[in-house]
């Protein structure tokens, strides 16, 4: 089996994680722009962060044969710093059209403050202007009403639900998200919120249409192997193979593939020009001897 993790913050993860992910069959990841734990107080640190996830992190992933994509946005927590938020909004368009950027995200509400609302709306407008998908972070507190409110705002701004992925769902939100035509992503957290066991039951109950599983692994206690582990559990609990493949691979590809920036060919049949500049994973580079598996030297510091 091969997997896509459509929400993981590799910025905060180690090469051990990359290695384990590649061995577990993860072929592609999507890295949403997020809050790095320590608040950024200058637009410069934001610029360097966004540059990292469109450049350096992509290179790191490619060394392990994993394709890396990202989403670009101002997260809800930092939207509450108005001075910073204004400056970040200025530079976002510059990053939104970079290669491998599959959506504006992750954006949405944290405390559902007035400033969060303002910058959510501005970014929805930016997505419309650039004809981009949107990846929504739903709040961890007051989740149900925050999720409904986010969908109301998306619709108010005229977004097509089939171009919007609503993330961090649970049993309380999934029905309405699916009913209104959005993609529903579920984050598997090892200890809190949504676990693999519950995920199995959700797929049993709601099926696999427009549902996807991700790890959202970051700097906190989280598991970069959540997607393959959940797939294994589904298998032992008798979920049909086709459904497992849909929620751990195909739906992420179908949703984010709409951007035109992510295609199966990227990892199955990488174009030569990409092998020259980016993808050093398991492919033969033009004019070079193939790497022996396990012998890749990676970057020497």
């Amino acid at each position, binding site marked *: 089996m091969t997997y896509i993790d459509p929400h993981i913050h590799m910025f905060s993860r180690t090469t051990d994680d990359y290695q384990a992910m590649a061995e577990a069959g993860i072929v592609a990841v999507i890295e949403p722009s997020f809050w790095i734990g320590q608040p950024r107080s200058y637009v410069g640190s934001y610029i360097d962060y966004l*540059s990292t996830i*469109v450049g350096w992190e992509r290179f790191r992933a490619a060394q392990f044969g994993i394709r890396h994509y990202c989403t670009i946005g101002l997260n809800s927590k930092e939207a509450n710093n108005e001075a910073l938020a204004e400056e970040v909004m200025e530079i976002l368009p510059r990053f939104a059209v970079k290669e491998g950027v599959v959506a504006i995200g992750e954006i949405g509400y944290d405390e559902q403050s007035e400033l969060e609302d303002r910058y959510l709306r501005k970014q929805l407008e930016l997505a419309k202007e650039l004809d981009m998908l949107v990846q929504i972070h739903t709040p961890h507190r007051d989740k149900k009403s925050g999720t409904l409110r986010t969908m109301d705002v998306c619709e108010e701004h005229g977004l097509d639900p089939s171009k919007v992925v609503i993330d961090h769902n649970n049993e309380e939100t999934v029905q309405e998200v699916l009913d209104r035509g959005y993609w529903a992503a579920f984050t598997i957290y090892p200890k809190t919120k949504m676990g693999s066991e519950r995920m199995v039951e959700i797929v049993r109950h709601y099926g696999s249409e427009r549902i996807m599983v991700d790890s959202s692994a970051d700097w906190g206690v989280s598991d970069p192997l959540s997607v393959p582990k959940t797939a294994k559990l589904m298998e032992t609990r008798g979920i049909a193979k086709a459904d497992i493949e849909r929620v751990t691979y195909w739906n992420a590809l179908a949703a984010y593939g709409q951007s035109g*920036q992510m295609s199966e060919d990227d990892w199955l049949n990488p174009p030569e020009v*990409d092998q020259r500049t980016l993808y050093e994973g398991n492919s033969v580079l033009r004019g070079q001897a193939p790497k022996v598996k396990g012998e890749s030297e990676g970057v020497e510091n």
Partner: protein
Amino acid sequence: MTPKELLRSWLERQLDPAALAWLDEATEKAAKEAGDKPLYLALGLAPRKLGKGDLTLGPEDLNDARSARADWDPRGWSVDQAARILLLLATGERQPERFPELLDQLCRTGDLGELVAFYRGLPLYSAQDKLVARAQEGARSNMRALFEAVAHRNPFPKEKFSEDAWNHLVLKALFVGSALHPIQGLDARANRHLARMMVDFAQERWAAGRDVSPELWRCVVPFADAELEKDLARALELGERGGAAGAALALSQRGDAAAERLLERAPDLAGKARRGALSWDALATA
């Protein structure tokens, strides 16, 4: 023709009319409109609008390139890279004073594909002397594709890098597993200090039980004194681990009595080198 005109004519030949029209319009907008937003957007969108196919160049095109700019070697460029460099050249023509600062700013926010293009374009921009620090910053990158955009098939380093910067560029190429032979000026800028650095590197690798690249000896042999000859002898004796084929090739090219004496330690390789069965290009990919 100027490099900019050449790039435009190569792209015209290869792009469909709609893509070319987008590029022409974007180039004009980026050069004329106030603010840098149109330039950022055009640079970002280039692969989406034009694709990432290889830029198809024949021997005549490569000749034209060399006449337009000494030692310009656009082999291996892609369509989006050519378009991005064209956009920079057009902007640079309009605002030559500001260009080095603009390039810095673009490099701070570039994705990997953009950065590779920006650095490949180095020999074509105006005010070359003001771009040295930028070029060295690129050579410091651990992203190999980016490093090679500066180091390989690019006349900028041999023309502008100080000896220290040059030596680190060559050593780093070995360190990150890049080939040396595509570095322009490798023989012309060889120096005693670099030879010493290379031998230290070889000893370090041997101590760790690792191979050294045969290309390493190309930078050592021209400066080999009695001291360095001991290391060359060791390389020949170690065979593949020592990069012996490169040592043999470099020694046969030097051809003096000391070199011939050393070559006696590896008669097979010496024979191959004399017959012309060894070449730097082939050694790098062997």
